[in-house]
């Protein structure tokens, strides 16, 4: 890399590549004749970014790694071709494949925290491949590593190169991974949800860096994600995957303006908008796993437009318009889609408030470290207050202090006029019952060895609300309220999907009959479509039961659809607060404006 400035695109030699052609790709499970993905045809033109979108379990990551002739243990690539300049990657000898990986097709992994080796210094990991292949001298490799880091906006000094992955923030790690992928100057890049879990500012930075580098080097990229809003900003074309097949494929603007497939429409319906509150909707049911996919159209059991034909005949990809294809029998019969469908009035800022919980002059400490400074806000009955900020802004710390999970704080937290003790242990059983905490990660917050019934029953027994048969009946009732079938009563938590687990966690909180629920990033580990259905559920609970919620999130668009008031946090201080409409339509602070402008949006 001769230049260090990424915007000097013309300084780079844009190579004439033919891009990548995927033909009839299929991946199957070993031992069983079951397709994970099948019938994938996709072309990545040179310099083009294609978004591959779908819910968890749709097979999008499987397609992504197949481009590097890699499949996870338990699966194998069973058919098809991946053509890179007329060479079939899938037919190559494994030695050639290893050589091709990195140099010609590079991969950027999903999880920034676990994707870099914890025991190898950043600088060494960056140049490892070049060193093994004997490319350049050690000085030239080091210089290339520094240039690569500069391109992604990271420090290039020796001290930084000597760091380990755990000494970097999530965004820094992800940009190191990006620099590492670009270092050998690949022709094709596969990015597997590289920004999931990053806050909006970092996400924007990573996405911009990626787009710039792709343009500068003429790299074709496949961007795998579950969030359509993310690809809205960077992709040239979008492929929507469902249950192992491409459901719809087309230019970005067409997909967002004229989605032809009911599934694409359902995904778009689940995305919150920054400009206006929406009644978010999830997609009923869950993505069928390989081997359990229905006959006919695979989406028929979740589709709002289903007819008998969909259950019997397998649809083919049909051309809707030039370059726009959809796999649906009823293309053209189901009317048009409007982005403003489902918008609802914003929460009324003038509504009288009956304060139930108030936080005054809260200062929180971790040991000697002062992390939250003088934060005051309150929460009214039946109201949702959102705490918004980047990672490290103290939003989770505040919610943990309110919930009594973190006790090293000063100030006053009053609940119906009574000051609450610092730690939950020293609060009365009734106060504990009336304030319930829902955790971010449903994979860690449910005991995998207990059945759903035991999990939901526990708070009832603990607080003496019900027991025995009566408790079981109430569990079934609660499961109905969170849209879980009663057949799941005896399932262990480990059998459920992420969204189902989070519903169980919500049912567990509801079992205590709370007045306040503290929701700590409860949708950020979930697919956008699942987030939609969880938000729908919470909104119903708020209206029916008048439960107040403290909603912690980094997603401002989500705030618009769920909350009435918002507290914008930066480095442990509230920088702006007020009703959602006021703050988001007329932000007063630069920080708020920056957060808003960095949020991915489709509206």
């Amino acid at each position, binding site marked *: 890399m001769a230049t260090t400035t990424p915007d000097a695109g013309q300084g780079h030699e844009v190579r004439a590549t033919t891009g990548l052609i995927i033909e009839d790709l299929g991946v199957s499970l070993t031992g069983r004749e079951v397709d994970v993905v099948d019938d994938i045809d996709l072309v990545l033109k040179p310099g083009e970014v294609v978004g591959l979108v779908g819910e968890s379990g749709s097979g999008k990551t499987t397609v992504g790694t197949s481009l590097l002739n890699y499949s996870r243990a338990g699966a194998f690539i069973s058919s098809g071709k991946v053509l890179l300049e007329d060479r079939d990657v899938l037919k190559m000898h494994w030695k050639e494949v290893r050589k091709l990986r990195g140099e010609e097709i590079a991969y950027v992994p999903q999880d920034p925290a676990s994707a870099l080796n914890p025991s190898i210094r950043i600088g060494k990991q960056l140049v490892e491949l070049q060193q093994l292949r004997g490319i350049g001298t050690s000085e030239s490799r080091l210089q290339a590593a520094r240039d690569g880091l500069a391109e992604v906006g990271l420090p290039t000094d020796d001290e930084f190169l000597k*760091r380990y992955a755990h000494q970097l923030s999530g965004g820094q790690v992800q940009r190191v991974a990006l620099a590492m992928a670009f270092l050998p100057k690949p022709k094709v890049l596969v990015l597997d949800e590289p920004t999931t879990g990053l806050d909006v500012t970092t996400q924007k930075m990573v996405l911009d860096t990626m787009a710039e580098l792709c343009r500068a080097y003429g790299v074709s990229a496949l961007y795998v994600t579950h969030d359509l809003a993310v690809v809205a900003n960077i992709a040239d074309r979008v492929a929507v995957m469902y249950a192992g097949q491409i459901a719809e494929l087309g230019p970005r603007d067409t997909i967002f303006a004229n989605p032809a497939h009911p599934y694409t429409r359902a995904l778009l319906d689940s995305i919150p908008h920054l400009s206006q509150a929406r009644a978010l909707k999830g997609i009923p049911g869950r993505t069928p796993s390989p081997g359990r996919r229905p006959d006919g159209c695979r989406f028929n059991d979740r589709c709002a437009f289903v007819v008998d034909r969909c259950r019997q005949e397998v649809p083919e990809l049909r051309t809707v318009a030039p370059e726009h294809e959809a796999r649906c029998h009823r293309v053209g019969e189901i009317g048009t889609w409007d982005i403003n469908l489902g918008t609802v009035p914003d929460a009324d800022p003038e509504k009288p408030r009956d304060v139930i919980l108030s936080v005054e002059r809260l200062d929180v400490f971790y040991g000697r470290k002062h992390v939250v400074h003088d934060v005051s806000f309150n929460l009214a009955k039946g109201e949702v207050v959102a705490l918004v900020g980047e*990672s490290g802004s103290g939003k989770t*710390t505040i919610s943990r202090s309110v919930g009594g999970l973190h006790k090293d704080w000063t100030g006053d937290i009053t609940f119906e006029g009574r000051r609450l003790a610092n730690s939950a242990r020293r609060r009365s059983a009734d106060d504990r019952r009336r304030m319930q905490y829902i955790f*971010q990660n449903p994979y860690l917050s449910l005991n995998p060895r207990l059945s759903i019934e035991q999990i939901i029953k526990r708070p009832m027994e603990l607080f003496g609300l019900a027991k025995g048969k009566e408790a079981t009946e109430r569990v079934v009732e609660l499961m109905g309220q969170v849209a879980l079938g009663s057949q799941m009563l005896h399932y262990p938590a480990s059998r459920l999907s992420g969204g189902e687990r989070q519903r169980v966690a919500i049912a567990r909180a509801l079992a205590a009959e709370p007045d306040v629920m503290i929701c700590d990033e409860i949708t950020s580990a979930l697919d956008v479509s699942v987030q939609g259905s969880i938000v729908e559920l919470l909104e119903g609970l708020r209206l029916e039961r008048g439960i107040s919620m403290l909603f912690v999130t980094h997603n401002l668009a989500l705030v618009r659809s769920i909350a009435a008031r918002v507290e914008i946090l930066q480095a442990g201080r509230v920088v702006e607060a007020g009703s959602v409409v006021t703050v988001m339509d007329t932000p007063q602070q630069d920080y708020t404006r920056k957060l808003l402008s960095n949020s991915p949006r489709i509206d």
Partner: protein
Amino acid sequence: MTLEATLPDPLAEGAPPRGRSGGAAWALWLARRLGLAVLTLWLVSVVVFLATAALGDPVRAILGRDYETNVARREQLEAQLGVGDSIVSRYLDWLGGLVTGDFGTSLANQLPVWEQISSTVANTLVLVLLSALVMIPLAFGIAMISAHFRRRRPDTVIQTILLALAGVPEFVTGILLVALLSTSVFHVFPAVTISTLDGHPWDEPKGMVLPVATLVLAVTPYVSRIVRATLLEVLDSDYVELARLKGIPEAVVMRKHALLNAIVPGIQVIALQLAWLAGGVVLVETLFAYPGVGKQLVDSVRNHDVPMVQALSMIIAGVYIVVNLVADVLSILLTPRARTAISS
């Protein structure tokens, strides 16, 4: 899918360690660990002393029927043991001796304890060290091969053999080795170690082979199985997947990316196993007539030679503590996260 940590992680936010304070932080940490080690050793000394004192009157046991008749000998032994004094003062005397390097005098033959045990302690340490030198690369090598072929035939075969070796008592392995290599089939190595009074068993290197081989076979399965299990976990991690997708050859993935992160549990098991070996594997020592600590300890207990038992127990405890301390230091040095946490 990554999630933000629920608690702010002090490591993630803090600046990386600076050279100046790093050294001081390390010294402080090491001093604390050494202090703890000394404290542990002191507690062991209390337990050892109380246990040997609770055994009953050693003088009566040693003299047996002569207890009533041989008054001169009885009085001499009682004076040596300080039978008349309180238990506290006897303990303090003994502890004072230990601190100054005086382990006392043997009751059985009136020779200084240290003179008698120094050569056996050295013998055992050499045996353990040789076994470790052979065992560590062997165990890691087997683990890597096994992990590479996970759940396929070579892995199954290796795991079955290892489990069988772990299940067979070490003296049975020894007997089989003797039968195979020394008496019945081949006659390559001597069946016993012959050591002269002043010499050491390793003066005849051939004689060391079978004892070392037996111990290696006894310990390797444990270490190898633990390292394999950790390796399998690491091989499933995202960073190994990324290394493969980056185009790193599999051998390098295994050596550099996987092994480096799987080594720590291995070190902990190695430490426990080596400490166990240092405690003396009496049956193996007896089998090969190897003049080691275990055999001497059993003899001393049988002779009611209290000072010898105390000294040997303290040395074994010392080896345990030192080996585990070394293992902890190595583990931390090999875990960057823990290492940077100390120096910052």
